[in-house]
């Protein structure tokens, strides 16, 4: 599965994209796996209220199932316009 990070999530994790092997059933499970990896991931996900997620480029949330998902992106609330 491809995992993407944007804005300060990308800066904290240290890269914008990675391929991972995971059996996570939901976004929440995936966040748990990532935060357990290294301190920089824990720092990126420290405040989940400031983290938004998209699964296969559609807005999602922590409870969204990941069965069949190819791409998960994590980012702060958007600030375009």
């Amino acid at each position, binding site marked *: 599965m491809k995992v993407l990070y944007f804005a*300060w999530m990308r800066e904290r994790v240290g890269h914008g994209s990675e391929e991972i092997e995971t059996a996570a059933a939901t976004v929440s499970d995936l966040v748990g796996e990532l935060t357990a990896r290294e301190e920089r991931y824990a720092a990126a996900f420290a405040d989940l209220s400031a983290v938004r997620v998209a699964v296969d480029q559609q*807005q999602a949330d922590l409870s969204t199932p990941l069965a069949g998902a190819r791409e998960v992106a994590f980012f702060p609330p*958007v*600030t375009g*316009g």
Partner: protein
Amino acid sequence: MSVSVQQEDFDIAAEMARLTAGDADIGAVVSFTGLVRGTGGLTAMELEHYPGMTEKALEEIEAEARARWPLSAVRIIHRHGRLATGDNIVLVLTASRHRQAAFEAAEFVMDFLKTKAPFWKKEEGPEGANWVDARDSDDAATERWG
């Protein structure tokens, strides 16, 4: 193509001419342009986005606007990359037979773009570079459309 995400600047008059060409039923075009504000000594900003999802999100916003108002044409251009104070950031054009639909749809598109399209601004000012925080007032502006 009604939605573009690009580094280059845009020409508002040319975009408007292209939008209305060949449709004599258009009686109103509303144009909104967002600019990089220099408040607080801001000198530049870096606009990051999520290629692929950004275009989809803008297309969905356009489709939603077309479902709510009788629009003849819509054009949305959002820039990314490094922009200086005073530069154009975003252009929304809505065309309709009458002005009310065009006015309302332009406001709707901007309100949804602010809260749904995956863009992030990093501002550069006298105290360094900082990611812009999302504003509760933008969420409220989106929610009022129901």
